[in-house]
C-alpha cells in the first residue's frame, strides 16, 4: 500500500501521463510534499475579495483576418515526427492493440 504522499504523486503522474520508475517515486513524493508545504504560506493571506489575475494582456490583441493564408509545407511539418506514413503521422493503436 503506497504512502499517501506517494499516492498523491502517482495520481498526478497518471494525469500528466508520465511513466515513473519505482525507485524515483519516494524522492519525487517527498519533493512534492515539501514544495506544497512551502506554497501553503499563501493561505495566510486574505484574498477572498481579490479577483484572480490570469493574464497581463489587457486586450484581445491585434488578431488577424479570418482567411486562408500560405502555410508551411506538409513535409516540413512532418519532418520532426518519429513515424510518418503516406504523408500522415503514424501513431500506436489507441484501442490497445499492438502495432
Amino acid at each position: 500500500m503506497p504512502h499517501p504522499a506517494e499516492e498523491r504523486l502517482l495520481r498526478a503522474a497518471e494525469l500528466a501521463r508520465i511513466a515513473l520508475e519505482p525507485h524515483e517515486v519516494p524522492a519525487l513524493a517527498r519533493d512534492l510534499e515539501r514544495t506544497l508545504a512551502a506554497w501553503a504560506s499563501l493561505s495566510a493571506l486574505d484574498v477572498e475579495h481579490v479577483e484572480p489575475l490570469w493574464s497581463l494582456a489587457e486586450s484581445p490583441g491585434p488578431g488577424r483576418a479570418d482567411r486562408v493564408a500560405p502555410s508551411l509545407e506538409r513535409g516540413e511539418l512532418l519532418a520532426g515526427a518519429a513515424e510518418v506514413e503516406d504523408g500522415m503521422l503514424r501513431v500506436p493503436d489507441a484501442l490497445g492493440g499492438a502495432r
Partner: protein
Amino acid sequence: MKARAAVESALARIEGLEGELGALLDVDEDGARARADVLDRESEPRSPLHGVPFLVKANLCWRGRPTSAASRALEGYRPPYDATVLAQLVAAGANPLGSCNMDEFGFGSSGEHSSFGATRNPWDLSRSPGGSSSGCAAAVAAGFAPFALASDTGGSVRQPAALCGISGFKPSYGRLSRHGLIAFASSLDTVGVLADSIERIEQVLAIASGLDPRDATTRALPEVFAEAPREHLRGVRIGVDRHALELVTHSASRACVESALDALRALGAELIPIELAFARHAVATYQLISSCEAASNLARYDGLRYGPRERGDATLQGSIAATRGAGLGREARRRVLLGTFALSQGEREAWLERAARVRRLVRDELSACFERIDVLVGPTVPEPAFRLGERLDDPLAMYACDALTAPASLAGLPAASVPCGSVEEDGVALPLGLQLVGAPLADARVLAIARCFQSATAHHRAQPPLCGSLS
C-alpha cells in the same frame, strides 16, 4: 570590424573556451560565414548591428537548426520556421552564430538542469552561471558574442546576467514577440536580451520589438527609446525595497549593493525607502502559476508530432507515458507533476486560484509604488554564484533564487540587471548585479537610468580571468 572578421574572431574564442564552459548546444559555422560574406558585400549597413554576431537560447526556434530547449523530449528537433525576434535581427544584418545551453525548458536557476550537461561560470569554473539562460550568460561573459537573445519567465535573463557580470533586460510583457519561443509559462514568458552593455540592449530592442500578428499578446507600444541618454540622475526618484536588501544576508554582497546605491545617489538620484508587503510571497506565487502553466504547455511532448518516441507497452497511452517519462528530465517532471496536482479536481481553487489572486496583489502594489518613484532598485541576486551541485537536490533552495526577480515577472514590468561590482570568495572575484524595475511599459526609462549608471561605473567592462588567456 567586417562581418567575416567578427565571425572568425568569435569562432576562435569559442574554439578556445567552449570546452571548459559547455555554453553552446549548436554552432552554425558555415551558415555564419556565408551570411557574413553576404553582409560584407553590401554597400550600406542595415542597422547598428550589421555584421554583429549573436547567440540564441536553445528555446528560440531557428529554421533548420537543432532547437531542443535542452530537453531529450526535443532532441534532434529542427524547426521549420524562425522565431520572429530572430528573423527581425537577421533582417537587420545581425549574424546568428549558434544556440546556447539552458536549464531544460527554462526550469532552473543554475544551468544544471540541461539534458546535455551543465554550463560553467567563466568567473569560476566550479560555480554555476545561473539560469535558466545559463549558456547565453556564460557565452556573452566569455566574449563569444556581444549579445544573446534569450527568455525570462521569472528571472532567467536577469539572474544569470548578474552572476556572470553582464547586462540583462526583461522587457515589459508584450513588448517583444514570443512567436517561435518554446513555451514554458505563457502568462509570464518574455523574450529578453543579455549583452556586454545596456547600449547594446537598446540597439537590439530598437530592432526586435513591436506588434507581431503571430503573437496576440504583443502590443503597439510607444517607441522604446523616447528618452535621450542621461548624464546625471538629478530629479530621478529611486525606490529601494528594504525587504529586498534584507534578503542579501551575505555581508560583502550587501556592501557591494549599498555602494551601487551610493553611486546612484552621487549621480543625483533621490533614494526613497519602499515597503512592499506582498513581494515576499512572489516565489510561491510564481512557482505555483508557472508550474501549472508548464504542466499545460508541456502536454504537447507526447512523441507523436515531434521528438523521440518510446514504445512503452505499444498502446498509444503507454507510448505517450513512456515517451514523457524518458524525455522530460528530473526538474521538468517535478514541475509538471506539481502543476498537474495543483490543477487537479478539488485542488485548483486552493492552489492555482489563490496564487492568481495573490498575483493581483503583487502587481497592484508594485504598480502603485511607481506613483512615488521612477524606478525600483535593489540586488538582482541575494548572493554570488553558488557551486555546481550545491542545490541540485534541494528544489526549494533553487526556487528561492527567483525571490528578487519574480515580482517584476508576475507584474509584467520591465526590469534590467547591470553589473555592480564583485565580491571575493576563495580568492576569486564573483560578480553581482543591480536590478532596476520600471513602471508598466516604462522600458525606456529603465534602460536610460541603467545606461547612466553604466556610463558612470566600469563594472560592465570587467572580464573573467579565463578570457585573459586568449587576448
